[in-house]
């Protein structure tokens, strides 16, 4: 590869890595640059060669979180060669300026595990912006069309794809957080583990253009896009698959190699070659299709898949050319469409289950089973895949529980969280028991006269008063007339109430004044409660005037329960 490019990429990459990983603050700024660049250019975002549009959006936010930690551990060294050759394209200018070559080198020395995590982070970051952008719908509609053109402009981004793939692999657990803002629950499930996988690669490979970005975003955005989606799905899949942090040494090795290979791929076919590498030549059926879009992304995704398969395989090296990459890109859609019939049919299909990226144009909108794509370095056994999906679902739901159960925000880990949940449920159940016992003693006759309650509630509890009022309003029952009594009773009991109590008062006065007399009687004549009870109950059910109830409901205080799903 040309040294110039390589250097540039290296710089970019390093800077990216450096920026991303070394400090969240710096990263956002860098990203901003890159995103700016990206934004400036058209969808193709190929303002400069090797410039990959980076979806700013969430990139900054998300990546900073995830990348920060990972960056340090990440050893950009690996990236140097392949990524440099590719257009990381972040903002070549800005990035380069910020890039610090020294750090990457230092980082490179880091352990392989860290490397992986770093990659993941970057991937997360990288993927983030595209996803965010995709979400905005900017890219999605245009990506397919535009990308091909822009992609073609991109220089070989085999490295890019590879990087993206790697990032997705290494992505830590932030993915779900990052993905969450995108509001794509399904993908969340799949990629929650992967955390910012998707985002990482996206960030990393801004140059890959929207396509890659969208792909990186993977799950969600990819699905939506048509052609690009395919690529994205590929990459997404890769990302997803790669998202899970890879702990094996093997991965590092493969990464390095893939980098190299990616680099080589960069040469001519660029995306395609990358794709070819990644896809492992599995599917080279449709070269043309993926060329444009899939280019980088597809290369990435298949590359990631491939990496999974071939590990340190030199397959990446194969300059399969556009066909391969295209195939790889195509494979994704096919794979996805096929569902999980071909678990091992192609190397790319890493797993029996495919990630169903909805963006696949040809994919049917619904499938009965969940498609999951194995992440890089993970077993492709269908059992483990199912396990992973299940685990991700569980962790996602545990997050909701964390919000619901008070005092669980800092707790991590299933066992402790379950402990808290159990304690909370037990305490709530005990409270119910206690309160029912209390009500049994306080109310010897169990005559819950509603108007009395209403009066009390209004005085002392907004919630109950509103609820009881609403309740009485909602229970339209016709009851025999009741004894008239002092209408002012209830009024007298509303000293200094809030505005909504005024409404309540109105309602009560208008409809329930007769009941007050009954109420008084019941409290004062406990012996004569049989009739009184009925009266009271009936009176309690008298509906307020509709407007009153509406007013009351409108003035109801905000929900008392904060936890709302």
């Amino acid at each position: 590869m040309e040294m110039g490019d390589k250097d540039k990429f290296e710089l970019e990459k390093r800077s990216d890595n450096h920026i991303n990983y070394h400090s969240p603050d710096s990263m956002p700024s860098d990203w901003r640059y890159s995103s700016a660049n990206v934004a400036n250019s058209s969808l193709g975002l190929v303002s400069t060669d090797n410039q990959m549009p980076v979806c700013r959006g969430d990139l900054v936010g998300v990546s900073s979180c995830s990348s920060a930690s990972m960056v340090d551990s990440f050893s950009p060294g690996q990236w140097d060669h392949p990524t440099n050759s590719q257009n990381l394209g972040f903002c070549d200018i800005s990035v380069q300026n910020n890039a610090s070559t020294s750090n990457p080198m230092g980082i490179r020395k880091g352990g392989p595990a860290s490397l992986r995590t770093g990659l993941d982070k970057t991937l997360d970051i990288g993927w983030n912006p595209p996803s965010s952008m995709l979400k905005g719908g900017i890219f999605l509609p245009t990506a397919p069309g535009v990308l091909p053109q822009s992609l073609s402009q991109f220089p070989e981004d085999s490295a890019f794809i590879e990087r993206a793939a790697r990032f997705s692999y290494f992505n830590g657990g932030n993915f779900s957080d990052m993905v969450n803002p995108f509001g794509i629950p399904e993908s969340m499930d799949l990629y929650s583990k992967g955390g910012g996988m998707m985002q990482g690669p996206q960030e990393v490979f801004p140059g890959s253009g929207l396509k890659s970005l969208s792909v990186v975003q993977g799950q969600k955005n990819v699905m939506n896009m048509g052609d690009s989606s395919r690529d994205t799905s590929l990459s997404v899949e890769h990302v997803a698959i790669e998202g899970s942090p890879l702990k094996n040494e093997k991965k590092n090795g493969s990464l390095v190699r893939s980098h190299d290979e990616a680099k080589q791929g960069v040469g001519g076919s660029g995306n395609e070659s990358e794709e070819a590498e990644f896809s492992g030549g599995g599917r080279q059926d449709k070269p043309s299709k993926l060329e444009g879009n899939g280019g980088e992304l597809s290369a990435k995704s298949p590359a990631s898949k491939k990496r999974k398969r071939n590990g340190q395989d030199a397959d990446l090296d194969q300059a399969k050319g556009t066909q391969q990459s295209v195939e790889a890109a195509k494979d994704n859609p096919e794979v996805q469409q096929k569902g999980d019939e071909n678990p091992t049919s192609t190397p790319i299909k890493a797993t029996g289950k495919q990630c169903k990226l909805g963006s696949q144009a040809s994919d049917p909108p619904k499938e009965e089973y969940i498609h999951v794509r194995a992440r890089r370095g993970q077993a492709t056994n269908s059992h483990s895949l199912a396990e992973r999906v299940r685990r991700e679902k569980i962790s996602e739901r545990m997050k909701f529980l964390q919000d619901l159960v008070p005092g669980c925000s800092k707790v991590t880990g299933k066992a402790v969280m379950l402990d808290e949940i159990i304690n909370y449920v037990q305490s709530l159940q005990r409270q119910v028991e206690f309160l029912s016992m209390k009500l049994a003693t306080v109310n010897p006759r169990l005559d819950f006269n509603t108007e009395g309650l209403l009066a009390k509630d209004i005085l002392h509890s907004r919630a109950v008063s509103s609820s009881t009022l609403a309740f009485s309003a909602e229970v339209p029952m016709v009851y025999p007339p009741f004894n008239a009594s002092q209408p002012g009773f209830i009024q007298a009991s509303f000293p200094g109430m809030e505005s909504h109590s005024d409404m309540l008062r109105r309602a009560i006065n208008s409809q329930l004044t007769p009941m007050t007399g009954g109420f008084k009687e019941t409290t004062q004549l406990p012996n004569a409660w049989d009739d009184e009870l009925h009266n009271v109950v009936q009176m309690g059910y008298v509906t307020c005037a509709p407007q009153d109830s509406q007013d009351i409901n409108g003035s109801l205080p905000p929900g008392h329960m904060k936890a709302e799903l």
Partner: protein
Amino acid sequence: MRAPQSIKQEFLKKWILGLQLCDFAKQNMSMLERKKAIKLSADIAIASTRNGMTCWSRALVAKASRDYGDKVLVERMLASESEKLKKVSSIGLIAPNKWVIIRSKKILRKSRRARRVRSSVPQSVLAKSIAKKMVKKRTQVLKSLVPGGEFMDDISLIEETLDYIISLRAQVDVMQTLAKATDLLNERAKVQAQVGHLALAAESTASPTARLISDPSEAFFKQTRESPQVTRHQGHRSSS
């Protein structure tokens, strides 16, 4: 997500309905019986707010329906509810085969535990297995807590727990306000009674001789002035 206010309102409505259906006034119930009836109607009410969509609500209704004495109340309460709940109350929650499945799972688990081989495994694996065991134990406990939890898998268990917690909170809130309100009502009644008997005392003092002599209740009233209940009755009697 349902608004908590609407949950509470719906629950209160149904609960009051159920309490009325309990017909407390007619029977001579002990405190425990009353408490049971209150709790039962509260449970059925909160379960019916879910309209049979959630597993725990159906399980709750099914459990309540098992005892014949309660079943009548349950059916009456659910008279206006969706078909699902009615079916549950009549049929029961789980089909027999599900019970078989659960039982066989338990047997499997026990047998696995029996023949576990303590092998020396690397630290990481050991830690993982311990963690898994902990999680498993807690899941078991949670399953026993959530009604109908035995029949759910992990994922739906968590969802049901989420929903159950929300409903429980609404139930507790409403019951608390109701208890508070009844407390206040009683206090107010007491105060009024005292006020009443004070007024009475004022009256009686106005014409002390005749009253004191002729009205035995007055004397009684004076003697028992300290006791609020008595005074209340006195006050009531005098006012009525």
